[in-house]
């Protein structure tokens, strides 16, 4: 904002906002604005100001109801919504059709595990060790700077063996002895493909549908479209995990779980991995709860006055965040207190689940969040980016995550939660069949590969035991049932009862959607 940009304008046409340097607004002084238009009556301009955003309009409506309870600010409950007049600009807050999934837990394997050692079994490659990848397969594809200078592209078969598991007889890698036990619950997709070949844009595309920052995350869209099931906790929670080793670790930033252009209250709350999941949640010593309540009421009152004057939706978001923080003072300590977990929990998740911040701990926390009605939990586990020393490092990663992953699926199932909780596992792209760097029988690396990669989903209305899509013998190109990230997003929304083509938000003149404007479809074959 450039304060005071209109200072030379005649006073009668001055944008009242531009005189206040402390206001945050889109129209704080840039040229040109409505205020610069000639021949428009001043009163009309003021009216425009009053209706500056749809949320402000909504806010005025709510004000008329006497601000009866902030929790109902957006009419979270459907019958309430209908009982009052329809609120313009408010999201549906109702599934378009009856949902299968009420919640999702997304295990994001950042850095991208190789499909060859995990879910895309290619036994025929064993005979092609150190042979050159046929040029016809690569088809002149642009390579990353990391392997473009290689003179050879020698085929590296998986060093890890596969065996059939479960009633479905699916091949599961020996890296996942625990996950193999729940193989029949999984729907493995081998034909995902994405547009980005580097981590940041690829992770953004998975988490927000777009490789450019600034778009809302999947969890934010769900929060916006469906509201909360439990107002005492955030609708969207993110956790990052301690890594068993650190190689090529990509930074994670909150743009992966931001609400983008949606109201900030739809952004994720990131739980910390320390002993305090949320910082500064406890009242300072000597401050009683009612004192804190009075303070928040006072601040909210000031914020409300500001909102009435300015109409910036960020102010409403701030108010609701104060409210959420206050409610979390009660709900989070209970959430993070694992002392009432029975021994069977520790047997299942393993002893590391007692150590805050481990992947095991986060998986257990995800189950507790699911029990308490949190819609979307995203757990990041980094350091899957094995350009070199892949056999050693992927094993470290698998050993850290295999049992907790199995435990989460099993725990949800035995507690009756898997039916309406969808678990999603996967990275942001695939890896190359050829070795990056020197290939030996014991050692190799793999570069990034966006043309195909594997993920799995379980529960929440997904068909268990299914394998979807096929890649060629080199897992380089897709030969059957390609599934773009957009299709994955459309399918996830579908599980929640949402039509991806209808869940939209007007921004920059477009009806913005998670799936964007390019063709995208629900993959009905994946649905139970």
């Amino acid at each position, binding site marked *: 904002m450039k304060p005071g940009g209109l200072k030379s304008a005649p006073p009668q046409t001055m944008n009242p906002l531009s005189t206040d340097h402390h206001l945050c607004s889109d129209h704080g002084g840039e040229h040109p604005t409505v205020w610069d238009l000639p021949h428009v009556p001043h009163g009309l301009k003021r009216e425009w100001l009053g209706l500056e955003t749809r949320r402000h309009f909504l806010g005025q409506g709510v004000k008329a109801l006497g601000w009866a309870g902030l929790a109902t600010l957006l009419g979270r409950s459907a019958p*309430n919504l209908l009982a009052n007049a329809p609120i313009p600009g408010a999201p549906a807050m*109702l599934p378009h059709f009856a949902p299968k999934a009420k919640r999702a837990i997304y295990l994001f394997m950042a850095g991208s595990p190789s499909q060859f050692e995990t879910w895309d079994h290619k036994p025929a490659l064993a005979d092609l060790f150190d042979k050159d990848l046929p040029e016809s397969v690569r088809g002149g594809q642009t390579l990353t700077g990391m392997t473009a200078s290689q003179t050879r592209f020698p085929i590296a078969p998986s060093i890890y063996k596969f065996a059939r598991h479960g009633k479905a007889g699916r091949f599961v890698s020996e890296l996942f002895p625990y996950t193999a036990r729940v193989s029949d619950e999984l729907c493995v997709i081998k034909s995902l493909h994405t547009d980005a070949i580097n981590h940041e844009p690829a992770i953004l595309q998975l988490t927000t549908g777009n490789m450019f920052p600034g778009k809302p995350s999947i969890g934010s869209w769900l929060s916006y479209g469906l509201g909360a099931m439990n107002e005492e906790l955030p609708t969207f929670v993110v956790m990052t995990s301690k890594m068993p080793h650190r190689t090529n670790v990509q930074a994670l930033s909150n743009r992966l779980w931001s609400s983008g252009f949606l109201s900030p209250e739809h952004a994720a709350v990131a739980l910390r991995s320390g002993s305090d999941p949320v910082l500064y949640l406890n009242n300072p010593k000597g401050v009683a709860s009612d004192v804190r309540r009075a303070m928040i009421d006072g601040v909210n009152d000031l914020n409300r006055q500001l909102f009435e004057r300015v109409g910036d939706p960020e102010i409403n978001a701030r108010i609701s965040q104060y409210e959420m923080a206050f409610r979390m003072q009660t709900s989070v300590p209970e959430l993070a207190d694992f002392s009432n977990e029975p021994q069977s929990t520790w047997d299942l998740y393993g002893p590391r689940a007692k150590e805050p911040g481990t992947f095991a701990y986060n998986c257990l926390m995800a189950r507790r969040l699911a029990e308490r009605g949190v819609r979307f939990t995203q757990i990041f586990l980094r350091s899957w980016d094995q350009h070199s020393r892949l056999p050693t490092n992927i094993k470290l990663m698998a050993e850290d995550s295999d049992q907790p992953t199995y435990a989460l699926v099993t725990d949800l199932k035995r507690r009756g939660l898997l039916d309406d909780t969808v678990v999603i596992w996967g990275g942001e792209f695939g890896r190359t069949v050829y070795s990056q760097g020197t290939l030996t029988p014991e050692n190799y690396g793999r570069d990034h590969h966006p043309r195909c990669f594997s993920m799995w989903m379980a529960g929440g209305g997904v068909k268990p035991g299914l394998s979807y899509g096929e890649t060629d013998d080199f897992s380089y190109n897709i030969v059957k049932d390609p599934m773009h990230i957009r299709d994955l997003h459309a399918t996830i929304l579908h599980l929640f009862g949402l039509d991806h083509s209808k869940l939209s938000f007007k921004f920059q003149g477009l009806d913005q959607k998670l799936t964007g404007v390019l063709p995208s479809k*629900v993959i009905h074959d994946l649905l139970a």
Partner: protein
Amino acid sequence: MTSWPNFRHAVPALAVLAAVVAARAEDTFYAQRVAPILEQKCVTCHGEKKQKGKLRLDSFAQLMRGGEGGGVVQAGEAKDSALFVRVTLHPEDEDFMPADSKPPLTPDEVKVLELWIAAGASETAPLSSIQGAPALAAPKAPMVALAPDWRPRAAQIAQLEKALGLRLVARSHLPTDGLVLRTAGAPGRCDDAALAQLAPVADLIVEAELARTKITDAGLVSLATFSNLRALDLTRTAVTSGGLGNLAPLGKLESLNLTSTGVDDAGVARLKDLPALRKTWVFDTRAAAVAEDPAASAK
């Protein structure tokens, strides 16, 4: 594994039912598989509002009547039926349907039409009589209402939510999809007395999320009046085996979660006469694990 005695009686009962309801529209291949395709892809132009080519496809009778070019269905002969031929032309063909670049039929949908015409294009043939039809996209939920329309009672619902501190959330935009009784935000406020007060809207609730609430066996007496209840979650409540008998009137109950409750095998045995119950969870109780899907384990 607990056996599921009600299934022992299921076969004769089903046989009788099948004889009685053979002609029920919702069980026919036409109603389940063919009509939804026509409804979705054709009736915009061939329906009540528009009748391009004087053709209507919004009912079986209209479909058989055909349009200005005569009949569109030649029973038994898909290749002689305009209904099939016109949707399988080259998309650039000017006779291709749906016209004007409207979304074409999927290969699966075309296959359904082909199989149905080949099998005689019957209105009454049961769904199961035509084998090999591909699963349709977006399997249509049965168009039966799960509960009465909640909208006339919206004010009452809002008032109960406010008074009881719980939520009654519509399951979808379809007002006959019923309500979810949701307590996750304040499970401590939901007790037996609160359940009793829900009597005026009991028939609207198809899902009751009562995990971690203060419900006891006494509350199950109120729940028994939730005549349209499909799913009931009693996880970590004080419910015991003694109370489960109260659930007997819940003829539509399909899933019951008893995780971390005081139930045992005797209580689970009381559930055996619930006719629709398919899934029961008893993890962390004294009851032996029950099959999640008794139908599957009976095989």
